[in-house]
């Protein structure tokens, strides 16, 4: 444990402290402390709307992951061992394939002459090619595909541990399948849902590659904002302040979700 703790203190905790310290200075040379960078961020609409857009983007992509991911996990948990392996393999295939490659595939699909537009045009659903790339719905869709496995795996873990007798008991007592799902299976699997939401959410808001390649230059989210301020504008103290604000915001969202998770655990066991 000690060697890894040493690495983390020297190369994880220390950099974050240096980052926090730099964010409280006007420039890299001066020694006076100031909160100017934070004031600048929260008084400028351009800046705080990027933060809001990023946090909200994560919510949308997480919800799409949940709607499609829960049924996959549910079916996986009921499948025979052999099919379960195949399904899990298909689910983890995308997360292990390079993010750049997966996002690139989506450019081929979403572009003006992409697969989706060809289908829409040939079915006469639209007269001219739809704009899918460089739009927020496009980013949400691609993020959902790229991060879906993070939602499916924790839910599957919890679902496969639920005692099947409970669902049988519910049915014997006269509840239908839908009622059993909503009143028995879903409440019992809430800890897995919360764990999946936490992983998916924190991955979606920081997905730099997907956000920049599908969103393009005009849709700016926090990771690109940090990168542009740090490397493009070379304004390190301000980029440090944005980084700190972003980290605190993501941690707050995660804390909120895990609080819900703890509530749901007591609900599940009650």
């Amino acid at each position, binding site marked *: *444990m000690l*060697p*890894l*703790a040493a*690495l*983390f203190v020297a*190369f*994880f905790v220390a950099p*974050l402290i*240096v980052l926090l310290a730099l964010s409280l200075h006007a420039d890299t040379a001066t020694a006076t402390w100031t909160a100017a960078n934070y004031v600048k961020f929260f008084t400028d609409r351009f800046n705080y709307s990027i933060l809001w857009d990023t946090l909200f983007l994560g919510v949308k992509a997480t919800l799409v992951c949940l709607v*499609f*991911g829960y*049924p996959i996990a*549910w*079916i996986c948990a009921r499948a025979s061992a052999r099919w379960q*392996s195949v*399904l*899990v*393999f*298909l689910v*983890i*295939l*995308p997360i*292990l*394939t*390079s*993010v*750049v*490659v*997966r996002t*690139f*595939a989506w*450019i*081929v*699909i979403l572009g003006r*002459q992409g697969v989706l537009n060809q289908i829409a045009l040939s079915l006469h659903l639209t007269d001219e090619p739809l704009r899918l790339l460089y739009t927020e719905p496009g980013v949400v869709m691609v993020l959902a*595909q790229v991060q*879906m*496995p993070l939602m499916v*795996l924790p839910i599957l873990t919890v679902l496969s541990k639920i005692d099947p007798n409970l669902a049988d008991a519910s049915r014997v007592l006269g509840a239908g*399948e*839908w009622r059993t799902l909503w009143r028995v299976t879903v409440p019992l699997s809430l800890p897995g849902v919360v764990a999946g939401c*936490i*992983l998916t959410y*924190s991955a979606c808001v*920081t997905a*730099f*590659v997907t956000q*920049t*390649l599908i969103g393009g230059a005009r849709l700016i989210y926090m*990771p690109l904002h*940090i*990168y542009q301020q740090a*490397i493009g504008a070379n304004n390190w103290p301000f980029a*440090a302040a944005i*980084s700190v604000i*972003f*980290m605190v915001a*993501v*941690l707050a969202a995660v804390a909120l979700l895990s609080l819900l998770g703890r509530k749901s655990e007591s609900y599940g066991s009650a």
Partner: protein
Amino acid sequence: MVAPRYSTDWEALSLRLVFGALAAIAIVFLVGPTVIMLLTSFTASQSLKFPPDGLSLRWYAALLDADQMQAAAWNSLVVAFWTTVLSVVLGTAAALGIARSRSPLARACDVLFMSPLLLPALAFGFAALIFIHRLGFSPSIPFLVLGHTVVCVPFVLRTTIAALSQLDPALLDASQSLGAGGWRTFRRVTLPLIAPGLGAGAFLAFMASFDNVPVSLFLADERSEMLPIHLWQQIETNLDVRTAAVSGLIVMFTLILMLLAERLAGLTRQMR
């Protein structure tokens, strides 16, 4: 008793249909892009169109002359290799400590070691850049490996701690009482039993490092370009069909490694 059973059957069918349809859409949605990417990379024409106008290996052949891409791929492999070695050595030692101890300190370490999974990696990459500048260094391969290790070690930790928690402590007691020392017990009893979990973790760490953009973006210097960053820049500026060929190679390489990991370590069991 007949009427309720009839309605239950209808309900079971509707539930199965809705969930089956959603899951089927999701599976196509998950696997489709990779398949389309793979087929497009075999195109015979100059453009990235699907379905391709004809099939050929010309863009794969063109990779043989792509010096910059080859250099970037080599850098990425070297960094991923050292990151995996460091993650496995440090991660196993830490997992043993965390799994054995119930102290609050061990819990705190567990949370700390897992936090890179939740924290924005790009913010950490930038923090690491500021930090090494403050120390008077400039970005280089060794720092890149350290940065990658911080964000990749959680994968090794998670699977190894899970494997250790399933280890029967009676086996360790038996080994000790038969006269084996701590190191010998670890090598002959613990290690073989946690090997699948450790192997799956090492595989995940390797893939995460090979694919890392947010940390490499700040810690790679001009001379050591990394493959995912090179590809990212290529896709942003000009859509070159050779990029599709590299992507195709990465997909095939990933598939082969995944099948190997499934065979050797039961990857799909370890990920749950």
